[in-house]
């Protein structure tokens, strides 16, 4: 009886020791992983395209309210975090992947979030979706190709990709509207990315500039009695 009790205790001790060793090794391995800030930023951009899930949310009364309130709360939290970071209450080092010029001004993720919020709440999805796609994919593609091909070619590639996004999302529109919208939207997106402003980030401009241009076009054509908007692309569950 005594012998078996001892072995059980020994076995427990041995397991505990092995578990601790394994845990320590695992923690050390995890800490040894280095993340490349450059690619981290790129993946952060492409991740944002999954916000399009917003348009699949059902149209029931309480969810409709949540669709307005929740994005506002999320962006407000981001504003608080950024305010505290800029004031120095939160250590800048904890924010992985921030650029040097973002030390004393709001980081680009906040601009991105504000632009997505405005698009969700104030723009029809036909305009919002291609603009969010441009910010999610065109921006990192331009950034990457700028390294290898130079500015001009990078913007040309960005323009073609943006045209593709507008063509895909407006494919149900009349052909002349499709062409006009794609060219105007892509021009806005590339201009928003190319023009660097001191206080407004390109992540904001790449979404808002094409959106505003298309909004003006839509309202202008509406005044002439033409509704250029195609049927919605995504349908709530």
């Amino acid at each position, binding site marked *: 009886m005594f012998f078996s009790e001892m072995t059980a205790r020994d076995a427990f001790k041995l397991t505990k020791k092995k578990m601790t060793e394994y845990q*320590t090794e695992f923690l050390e391995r995890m800490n040894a992983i280095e*993340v490349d800030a450059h690619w*981290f930023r790129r993946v952060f951009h492409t991740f944002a395209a*999954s916000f399009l*899930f917003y348009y699949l949310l059902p149209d029931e009364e309480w969810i409709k309210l949540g669709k307005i309130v929740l994005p506002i709360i999320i962006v407000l939290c981001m504003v608080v975090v950024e305010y505290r970071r800029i004031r120095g209450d939160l250590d800048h080092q904890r924010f992985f992947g921030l650029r040097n010029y973002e030390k004393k001004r709001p980081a680009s993720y906040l601009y991105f979030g504000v632009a997505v919020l405005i698009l969700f709440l104030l723009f029809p999805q036909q305009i919002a979706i291609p603009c969010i796609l441009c910010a999610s994919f065109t921006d990192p593609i331009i950034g990457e190709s700028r390294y290898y091909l130079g500015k001009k070619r990078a913007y040309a590639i960005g323009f073609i990709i943006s045209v593709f996004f507008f063509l895909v999302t407006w494919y149900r529109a009349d052909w002349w509207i499709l062409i006009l919208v794609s060219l105007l939207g892509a021009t806005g997106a590339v201009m928003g990315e190319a023009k660097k402003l001191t206080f407004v980030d390109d992540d904001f401009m790449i979404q808002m500039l094409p959106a505003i241009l298309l909004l003006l076009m839509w309202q202008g054509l509406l005044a002439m009695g033409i509704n250029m908007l195609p049927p919605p692309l995504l*349908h709530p569950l």
Partner: protein
Amino acid sequence: MKNKNDTRKENIQKLLLRLELWFAPVLIIVPIGVSFFFLWDWYVRGFSTGSSLYDGELLIGLLLLTGNLMFDIFFLRSIRILKKKQ
């Protein structure tokens, strides 16, 4: 023993501060999950009922999937390269 415990605690603290390590799996898994949801939605509401109304879900699902996979590959490769360098 005490020393070992200290290093463990130190490691845990370090890990908690490295937000990028917590974010990285989310940045990879969520978009792929969402894109599959779009594709599934297209299949259930559109393809299986023979309706072309939901083709938008298919297009967005494919765009999300290809766009994200493209960048995820480079991201994961960069982590591997840095690991090798160490």
